[in-house]
C-alpha cells in the first residue's frame, strides 16, 4: 500500500486461525492501522493480493467484505452511533439478516410474522453479546453517554454481533485505566476460548499483548521484521532495535526494555 511516495506496508504476510489471537505490534506509524484498512477494504492495495479462505479481498468493497468475507473490525478512535442506544447500535450490526427478513422493508411495514420473528432473533443475539460484555444494564442508554471503557466494549460487541469469522481490533485498550485493561484482557481470553473466531489485535499495551496472544507479528516501516510466539518476540534483537529507535519511551514494551537494560 503506497500513499504518494510513502510505502505504508509492503510484503507483509501472516496467518490467522480460529480460536487464536494474532497480535500485530510495532512503533507508531509502522503501518498497523493501514494493514487493517487494506484487509477490511477501506483502502485498496496499490498492488498485491489479500485472501481469506480463498476470497479475493482486494476486489471487494468495504461493506461487501464485512458481509461476504465476514470480517468485522473496531477503530483506533471509537466509532459508535452516539445518539442511538446501545441496543440500537447492536441491531444495526444485524442489518443484513433483518433486511432480508423484512423483504427490503415490505414485510416489515406490513408487520408480518416472518419479520417479527427475525427481529426477536436479532434482539436475542444482541442480548447475548450485551451479557457477555456486561452491558445489559445500559441497553437503552445512548451510546454516546457511556464512559469511555464501556464504549470500547460496546464497539467490540457490535463488531461481534455481525457474526464474524475474523475480528480485527485496533488498539482496544487505548485510553483505558489498568482495571479496565485487565477486564478487557479477560474478555479477549474468554472469546478466544469459547468462540470460533480468528482475532487480530493491534495493541501497544504489552501486558495485553503478552497476556492473550498466541502469535505476534512485528511491523516496522511497513515491513514485517519478526514473527513468533510472545516468548520468541521478547528476545528478538530486530524487535528490540525497532523499539529503541523510537524516541517515545511510552511505546517501549516493558519486557523489552528490561531485556535491554541487562
Amino acid at each position, binding site marked *: 500500500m503506497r500513499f504518494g511516495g510513502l510505502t505504508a506496508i509492503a510484503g507483509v504476510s501472516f496467518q490467522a486461525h480460529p480460536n487464536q489471537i494474532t497480535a500485530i505490534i510495532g512503533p507508531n506509524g509502522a503501518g498497523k492501522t493501514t494493514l487493517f484498512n487494506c484487509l477490511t477494504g*477501506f483502502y485498496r492495495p496499490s498492488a498485491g493480493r489479500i485472501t481469506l479462505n480463498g476470497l479475493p479481498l482486494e476486489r471487494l468493497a468495504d461493506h461487501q467484505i*464485512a458481509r461476504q468475507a465476514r470480517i468485522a473490525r473496531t477503530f483506533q478512535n471509537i466509532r459508535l452511533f452516539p445518539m442511538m442506544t446501545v441496543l440500537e447500535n447492536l441491531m444495526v450490526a444485524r442489518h443484513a439478516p433483518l433486511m432480508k427478513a423484512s423483504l427490503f*422493508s415490505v414485510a416489515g*411495514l406490513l408487520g408480518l410474522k416472518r419479520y417479527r420473528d427475525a427481529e426477536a432473533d436479532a*434482539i436475542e443475539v444482541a442480548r447475548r453479546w450485551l451479557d457477555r460484555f456486561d452491558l445489559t444494564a445500559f441497553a437503552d442508554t445512548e451510546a454516546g453517554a457511556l464512559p469511555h471503557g464501556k464504549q470500547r466494549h460496546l464497539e467490540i460487541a457490535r463488531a461481534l454481533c455481525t457474526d464474524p469469522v475474523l475480528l480485527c481490533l485496533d488498539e482496544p485498550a487505548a485510553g483505558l485505566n489498568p482495571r479496565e485493561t485487565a477486564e478487557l484482557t479477560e474478555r479477549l481470553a474468554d472469546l478466544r476460548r469459547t468462540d470460533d473466531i480468528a482475532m487480530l489485535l493491534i495493541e501497544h499495551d504489552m501486558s495485553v499483548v503478552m497476556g492473550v496472544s498466541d502469535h505476534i507479528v512485528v511491523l516496522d516501516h511497513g515491513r514485517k521484521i519478526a514473527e513468533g510466539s510472545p516468548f520468541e518476540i521478547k528476545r528478538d534483537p530486530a524487535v528490540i532495535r525497532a523499539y529503541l529507535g523510537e524516541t517515545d519511551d511510552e511505546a517501549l514494551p516493558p519486557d523489552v526494555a528490561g531485556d535491554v537494560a541487562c
Partner: protein
Amino acid sequence: MLARLKSALLAGLAAALLGLPLLGFRLTDSATGLSLALRPWWVAAAFGVVMAGRFVMDGLRLPDIQFQAPHDIRRQAGLGLTLFAALLPLLPFAGRNVVDMATMVLIYVMLGWGLNIVVGLAGLLDLGFVAFYAVGAYSYALFAQYFHLSFWICLPLAGMLAALFGLVLGFPVLRLRGDYLAIVTLGFGEMIRQVLLNWQSLTGGPRGLSGIPRPTLFGVTFTPEARVIFLYYVILGLALMVNLLALRLRRLPIGRAWEALREDEIACRSLGLNPTLLKLSAFATGAMCAGLAGSFFATRQGFISPESFTFMESAVILAIVVLGGMGSQIGIVLAAVLLVGLPEWFREFQQYRMLAFGIVMVLIMLWRPSGLLSARAPSIRLGPAP
C-alpha cells in the same frame, strides 16, 4: 459588566458596518435622474438597536426549557392533535377560510415529514426538495391533460415518478456530504425549475398549466364549498399516511440504518451496510412523499406554474424540519403552523413575512438550537419504557 459593554459595542459596530451598504444608501429618483442619498440615521439606529439588544441578551440568562415530555404523553398529544385535525371542519369557528388554510398547513406538514426522512433520519441535507414537489404536481397535471387519468390513479404514479427523480438526483451526489451535498441539491432544484420554465411545449413555460381537473370521489363531483372540506380530508389522509410510513420505517432495519448512516458512515461500512443503497432509498422515499404532496397541490390549485416551486419553498420546508426539531413528528406540525399558518392568517402584514420569519429563526437558534421538540425516542427497547 465591562465585558458585556464591550460585546454589545462590538455587536453594534458589526451591525453598523453591515447596515452601511444595506440601510445607509438610498437611490432617489429626482428630476435630474437617479441620485444616491445618504441615510446616516438609519445606520445609527441599527447600531443602537443591536447594541441595546445584545446588552439585554447577555444579561438575560435564557432558560433552557426542556420539553422532555415522556413518550406516552407525546403519544397522547399526537392522538389528540389527530383527533382535532379530523374534527376541524365540523367545529363552529371553522369557516371555509380556516379549512382552506389548514389544508395549506397540512401540505407543508406532509412535506416536512417527507423531508425529515432525508434530513432528520438519514442526515442528508437536501436544499432542492421542492424539485420533487414540482415533479409530483406537473406529473399529475400532465397525466390528467394528456391521458385523462383520474386523480386517484395519478397520485401513485406521481409518487413513483418523484421517487425515480430522487434516485436520479441520488446518483451524482452519492460521494458528497454536508455543505457540498446541500449545494448540489440546491442546483438540482433550480435545474428542474428552469426545465419547467423553458420546456414551453410541454409545461407551458412561465404561463404554467391551468384547468387541472379537480378530484372526484367514485365519480361524485363536489360543489366548491364541499370541495374545500373534501380536499382537507384528502390531504389529512395523505399526511397521516406519510406520518405512519415515517414512524414505521424508523423502527425497521432500514430506518435504523439511515440513522446509523447519519451518525457514522465509516462505522456503517464496517458493519456491512451499503451506504449507496441507503442514501438512494432515503432520497427516493423522501421524494415520493413530496411527489404525493405535489400532485395534491396541483389538484387543489387547478393551476400550477414554476412560480410555486422556487428555492424559497425548499427553504421553508427545511426551516420547518429544523425548527420542529429534527426527528420529531409533532415538532414539525408546530413549526408548520408557526411558519405557514400564522403568515397566512396575518395576510395584511404580508410584506413583513420574511422579517418575522427571520426573527423566529434567530430566536429559536438562540433559545433552542436543536429545535422546538428534539428528544429522540429509541426505535427499540430491551427494558420497559420509562
